[in-house]
C-alpha cells in the first residue's frame, strides 16, 4: 500500500530541485506477488525440484557400485534403465508390474475404507450427546501417534506366536495359528494397519465439511418426508463433494507412496503380497546399489502419479462445473 502511494506522489517531489527527501524505490504492483513468493519458490526449487531433476538425470545413468564415488562421470545409458524396468518378459519387469498391481489394490482399498469409515464416524458424531468430545478425541489418537510407534504396536499384535490377534482368535475358537506377516495375509495386515492410521484424517476433514452444511436443509428434507438414508444420499454426500474430492486425492497420493508402514511392519523381509512400489524401488536401489535403475522406477512412478492427478483434477473440476 505504502509502496503505491509513494509512487503516485513521486512526480511532484521530483519537481523540487534539491529534493531533501530520499526517494523511495518503486516496486510496481505487478511484481509484488512474485517478490513475496520468491523465497518460497526458491526453497521449493532447492528442496523439491532440483533433487527431482537430479533423480531424473540419474535415471539415464549407469549408476552402480562402480561409479557411485565418481557419480558425476557415470556413463550415460539413455533409456536402458527404463527398458529394463519395463521389460515384462524378464524377472525384474514382472516384479515391478506385480508390485504396481499390489500398490493400486492397496491404495484403492485403503482410501475407500478410510473415506467410508470417516464419513460414518463424522455423521454419528454430528449430533451432540454426552461423551461426544471424548469420542472425537479418541478417534484422532491413531493419527496423532508417531507412525513408528503405531506400526510397531501392530507388528507386535500381528506376531504369530505371542501376538494379540492370534491370542484373541484362539480364545474365540477361530484358529489363531495363522501367520499375519508372511504370505498373502501380509496384504491384509498392511491394509488394516494403513487404514487404522489414515481414517482419522478422513474423519477430521469430513467432520469439518459437515459443519458447512446448513441444518435447515435437513429440516426441510425431513418435512418433505425424506428418511435418514435419503438425507445422507441426497444432501450430505453431494454437499461434501468439494471436501471429498481433495480428501480422496490426498489420501490416494499418500497411500500410493506409502513407505513407512510396510517398511516398519515387515523390516527387510517384505512379502511379495505387500511389496508396495516405494519399497520395491528402495530394494532395487539401496539393497542392490543400482541407483540408476531405482531412479528410473521412481521417475515412472512420478509420471504415473502426475497423470492420475491431472486426470482426476480435470474430471472432478469438469463435473463440478457441470453441476
Amino acid at each position, binding site marked *: 500500500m505504502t509502496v503505491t502511494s509513494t509512487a503516485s506522489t513521486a512526480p511532484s517531489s521530483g519537481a523540487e530541485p534539491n529534493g531533501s527527501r530520499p526517494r523511495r*524505490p*518503486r*516496486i*510496481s504492483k505487478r*511484481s509484488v506477488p512474485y*517478490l513475496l513468493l*520468491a*523465497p518460497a519458490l*526458491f526453497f521449493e526449487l*532447492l528442496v523439491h525440484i532440483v533433487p527431482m531433476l537430479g533423480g531424473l538425470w540419474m535415471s539415464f545413468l*549407469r549408476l*552402480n*557400485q*562402480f561409479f*557411485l*564415488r*565418481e*557419480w558425476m562421470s557415470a556413463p550415460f*545409458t539413455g533409456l*536402458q*534403465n527404463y527398458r*529394463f*524396468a519395463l521389460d515384462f518378459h*524378464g*524377472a*525384474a519387469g514382472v*516384479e515391478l508390474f506385480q508390485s504396481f498391481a499390489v500398490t493400486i489394490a492397496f491404495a484403492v482399498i485403503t482410501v475407500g475404507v478410510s473415506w467410508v469409515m470417516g464419513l460414518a464416524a463424522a455423521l454419528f458424531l454430528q449430533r451432540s450427546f454426552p461423551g461426544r468430545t471424548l469420542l472425537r478425541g479418541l478417534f484422532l489418537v491413531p493419527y496423532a501417534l508417531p507412525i513408528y510407534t503405531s506400526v510397531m504396536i501392530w507388528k507386535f499384535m500381528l*506376531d*504369530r*506366536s505371542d501376538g494379540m490377534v492370534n491370542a484373541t482368535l484362539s480364545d474365540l475358537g477361530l484358529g489363531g495359528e495363522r*501367520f499375519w*506377516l*508372511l*504370505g498373502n495375509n501380509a496384504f491384509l495386515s498392511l491394509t488394516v494397519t494403513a487404514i487404522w492410521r489414515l481414517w482419522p484424517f478422513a474423519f477430521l476433514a469430513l467432520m469439518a465439511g459437515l459443519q458447512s452444511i446448513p441444518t435447515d436443509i435437513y429440516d426441510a428434507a425431513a418435512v418433505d418426508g425424506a428418511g435418514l438414508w435419503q438425507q445422507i444420499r441426497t444432501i450430505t454426500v453431494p454437499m461434501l463433494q468439494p471436501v471429498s474430492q481433495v480428501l480422496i486425492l490426498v489420501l490416494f497420493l499418500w497411500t500410493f507412496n506409502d513407505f513407512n508402514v510396510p517398511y516398519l511392519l515387515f*523390516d*527387510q*523381509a517384505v*512379502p*511379495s503380497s505387500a511389496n508396495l512400489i516405494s519399497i520395491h524401488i528402495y*530394494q532395487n536401489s*539401496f*539393497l*542392490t*546399489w*543400482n541407483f*540408476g*535403475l531405482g531412479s528410473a522406477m521412481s521417475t515412472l512412478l512420478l509420471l504415473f502419479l502426475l497423470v492420475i492427478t491431472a486426470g482426476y483434477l480435470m474430471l472432478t473440476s469438469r463435473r463440478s462445473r457441470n453441476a
Partner: protein
Amino acid sequence: MRHRRLSGVIVLILVLASSLLSGCAREQDDGRTLTYWASNQGNSPQQDRRILNEEFEKFTARTGIEVNVEVIGWGDLLNKILGSAVSGVGPDVVNLGNTWAASLQATGAFVPFTEERMQRLGGRERFLETSMSSTGMSGRPPSSVPLYGLSYGVFYNKAMFREAGIEQPPENWSQFVDVARDLTRPNQDQWGMTLAGASYTENAHFAFMLGNQEGAQLFDSDGRATFASPQMASGVQRYVELMSEHEVVNPDDAEIGSATEAVGNFATGEAGMLVAQNSAIAAIRAAGMKDGEWGVFPLPTPDPLPEGGEAVRSHVAGTNIAVYRNSENKDAAIELVKFLTSAEEQSILNEKYGSLPVVSDAYDNPAFNTDALRTFSRILAESSKQVPMIPNENRFETTVGAAVRDLFARAGTNRSVRREDIADALNEAQQKMRSGGGSTR
C-alpha cells in the same frame, strides 16, 4: 530502481541459502583427530563406545592422535558407507562386514593396502590366511584388513542334551537331524533348533555353507551366477527341511528377522541348538545363560560328502577395517589400523567382544583357550571358505537370501516345500542376479 530492489532480494536469499548450506560443510581438520565408524560388536553401542574409548586413550597417549568414535548398528552401516562414498564426506576409518569387501572395493572408496602399507602393519603373514582371503577381489591389493574374526558353530544346551539321553555331539548331518528330532517336544514348546528364517543375510550364509557341502559352484570364472544347480537346491533343501519335513524348528521362526532373536530362543531354552557365529556368545551371556550350560560343535556335513562337496563348516566371517580415500589424515588413519591390529589390542578387544583375533600372535591370551573359542578358531582357520570375492556378492546375499526367506514362509504356513519349489526359487533368484539391469561395469 526496481531491478536494484529485486536484485537486493535475490542477494539476500542467496546469502541466507549459502549460510544454510555451509552448515553441511566439513568441519575443519586439525590433522590430529580421526573419525572412526565402529560396527556394533558388543551388546550395545554404549558398551562398544566404552570399550573402544578405553583403548583409544592409550593410542592418544602414544601418538597424540585423538579418535572420535561413532558406533553404528549393522542395519545402517552399509547404507552409511555408501552415502559417504557418494558424498565424499565421511569418517577416516571405518568397519565393514568382510563379505562386503569386494563389493565396496569396487566403489573405490577405500585406500588399497599395498605391500608397503601391509608391511607397516607387520606384514601379510601375521594375519590368519582365511581371514585375509576375505578382504577384496583376488589379484588386487586388499581394500580392507581383518579386524575381528568370526565363524559359525553349533551351540547346544547341555542340560537338554542330557535329558534327551544324547551323549555325543552329532558328527554328520543325519545324526544332527536325529538329535534335533530327539530334542523336539512341540507340546512343551521345545524345539530341536532355532534359526532366523526371515533374515536374508543369515539365509544367504546357510545357502552358501550347505550348498558348498553339496558341491555347488556359485559363480563361474566370469563371475556369472550359476547357483541354480541341483547341488545348491540340495543344500537349501536340507536347511528348509528342518522346518518343513523334519519339523524340528518352530514354524514361528519363519518370522524371525535377526540372529539376535534366535539367540534369545536358544538362551531361554526354547530350542536345544542354534547355528550361530561366536559373536552370539556375548548375547547368550547377556540373556542369562552361564558358560557351563552350553557347548559348541562344528556344523556337521553329510557323510559321505557328495561328489565335489567340501567340508565347509562356516564362511569366513568377521569384521574388516578400511581407510577412506577421502581421508585427509591417511597416515594417522593407517596408524590407527596398525594399533587395532597389533597383537596387544587384538587380544584385548577380541576377548571383550567374544570374537577371534585375526593375527596369529594374539592367541597367547588364555582367554582364547576355552573349549568353545578353540572350536571356533579351528573352524575359522581350517574349515571355513570365503564367500565369492566378486563385486556382485551383495546381490547374491539379497537374491538368494530372499528366496530362502520365502521358502521358509511357505514352510511355516503350509509346511510343504517340494524340491521343485526350491529349484524354481533358485532359478528366479539367478535370473534376477544375471539380469542385473546395468549392475556391471
